[in-house]
């Protein structure tokens, strides 16, 4: 009899542990559900056509939209891509195609450490680098700050997708007498193009929601930006300034902006995962 009781207690304990772990998993995803629920409840009513087409209205005037902030965010992302993509992709090429074991270990290590630098620090650095020098907040400064954040992200994903290209492709190309760099560009990178683009899109989706690096670089703007050397509006900045404002109407706008931003980020993430094959999806 004793023999029967003993294992059953151990089995109960095992089931109990699984239950506790399951509850923990539910607790981890609970914030997602709650945030999404409130975004839909508070934001859905405030999203309207004019939200996408109009400028912010002055305090006290109801209505208005975030057209300038939405467009500004895309402009900033374009600038960020200009600053971050070449360095990220080519750096990834070096890691995958040229680097030695030791240099790669070091470069990956530094890239991962760099990835952990708080985003607000990038704002401070770009402020010293660009804003102080040109004496103006600007779209260029904001784009540069976001671009810096993208470099280590893109570098790592590019490296990983290039490593998925079989060695035989390289050897076949080289055997035809095609030079090394043309092999890399026209064979290896072309084969992995989808993966490289996916990595870039994910990095863009990641920085699209960044606010801290833009606070004192892009700065925000309640009007259209006509010169990239001037301050520019961005969706996350606008959400922040509306969220901490004392006006109810602005709070509604903040929720609407947040809903739009989250939907855009999620769409990119989902799109990327649907488009990439199982094999790529695992790496990215």
């Amino acid at each position, binding site marked *: 009899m004793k023999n029967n009781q003993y294992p059953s207690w151990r089995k109960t304990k095992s089931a109990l542990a699984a239950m506790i*772990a399951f509850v923990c998993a539910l607790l981890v995803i609970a914030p997602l559900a709650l945030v999404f629920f409130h975004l839909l409840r508070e934001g859905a009513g405030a999203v309207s056509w004019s939200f996408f087409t109009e400028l912010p209205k002055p305090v006290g005037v109801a209505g208005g939209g975030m057209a300038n902030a939405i467009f500004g965010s895309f402009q900033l992302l374009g600038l960020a891509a200009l600053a971050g993509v070449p360095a990220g992709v080519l750096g990834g090429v070096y890691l995958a195609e040229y680097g030695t074991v030791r240099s790669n270990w070091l470069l990956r290590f*530094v890239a991962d450490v*760099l990835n952990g630098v708080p985003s*607000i620090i990038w704002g401070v650095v770009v402020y010293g680098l660009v804003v102080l020098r040109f004496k103006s907040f600007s779209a260029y400064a904001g784009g540069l700050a976001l671009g810096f954040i993208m*470099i280590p992200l893109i570098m790592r994903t590019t490296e990983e997708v290039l490593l998925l290209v079989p*060695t035989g492709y390289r050897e076949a190309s080289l055997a035809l007498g095609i030079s090394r760099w043309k*092999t890399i560009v026209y064979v290896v990178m072309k084969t992995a193009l989808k993966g490289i683009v996916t990595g870039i899109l994910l990095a863009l989706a990641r920085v*699209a929601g960044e606010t801290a690096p833009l606070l004192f670089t892009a700065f925000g703007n309640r009007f259209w930006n006509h010169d990239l050397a001037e301050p520019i509006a961005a969706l996350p900045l606008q959400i922040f300034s509306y969220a901490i404002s004392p006006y109810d109407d602005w709070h509604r706008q903040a929720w609407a902006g947040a809903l739009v931003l989250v939907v855009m980020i999620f769409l990119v993430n989902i799109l990327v995962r649907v488009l990439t094959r199982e094999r790529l999806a695992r790496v990215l």
Partner: protein
Amino acid sequence: MPVVANPPTLAARSTIDRMAPASGVGDKIFKWLTLAMALAVVVLVFLVGWQLARGSSLAIQKFGFHFLTTSTWDPVAEQFGALPFIYGTAVSSLIALIIAVPLSIATALFLTELAPLWIRQPIISLIEMLAAIPSVILGLWGIFVMIPWLRDHPFPVLKRLFGWTPLFDGPIYGTSMLAGGIIIAIMILPIITSVSREILRSVPNLQREAAYALGATRWEVTRIAVLSYARKGLFGAVILGLGRALGETMAVTMVIGNTPQIRASLFAPGYTLASVIANEFTEATTDVYLQALFEIGLVLFGITILANLLAQLLLRTMGSTMPPRAVQ
């Protein structure tokens, strides 16, 4: 690790290097170009350090070591001490770790060891979605949903139960160190979970099979064979989460109350290194003020770099050949 038909191994690479050494002009240019771009990450680390040090040189000279040990923050009198912010960053991050570490590691265990297979992928996707929510949106939710709820329900209960300790004493405003810690915990849950999951997945199956062969139950296998093997890597995941927690800015700024003070009570408002930069940088009217904020940035950069260095070293010495990749 993805299974690839013919992954470029180092042996294959060295063959390619012999077959096609970078000899032509185009080859040389391309190789050096990619090397220069790869070195960008190293240059960036130094650029950040140099820029922050340059921006704060006057403040460092003026305040010296006292900057870190005094707690007066008075821009009008030009007296700057960073202690309240260092304290706020430390306490809020500690609260975040206390909440997030058990939850994330239990979730990672659930996802790799205990859960039925069909449920794993949906939960993993949901956690990735949580990671994709921008900090400012979590902060928005924090201000309008979490803070009022905390103020009305859990905080009074905590005060009734533990009000006799200094930690839960004093008036309840809602915006508080505790709220800041909770929001940071939500922000770092996904990264600790996914890095821990990578670590647990890198535990060799032989390890589990050996324990099963001895008649261990699923939980005993997890505890004896998996957890003890992965301890170092899990510690690395926690430190990585700490690095993120120290630098979290927007969401914390929106819920912590932004008051430069040192109070034992977790219900009292606080301030962190990152949020003082976010709030006051554009308001810094004098040179010394701006310099002091640059120095705060330098301190923040220093501690996050240390945390990340330690985390990456721990993760890399786990014994797996493929280091767990940095998760967003």
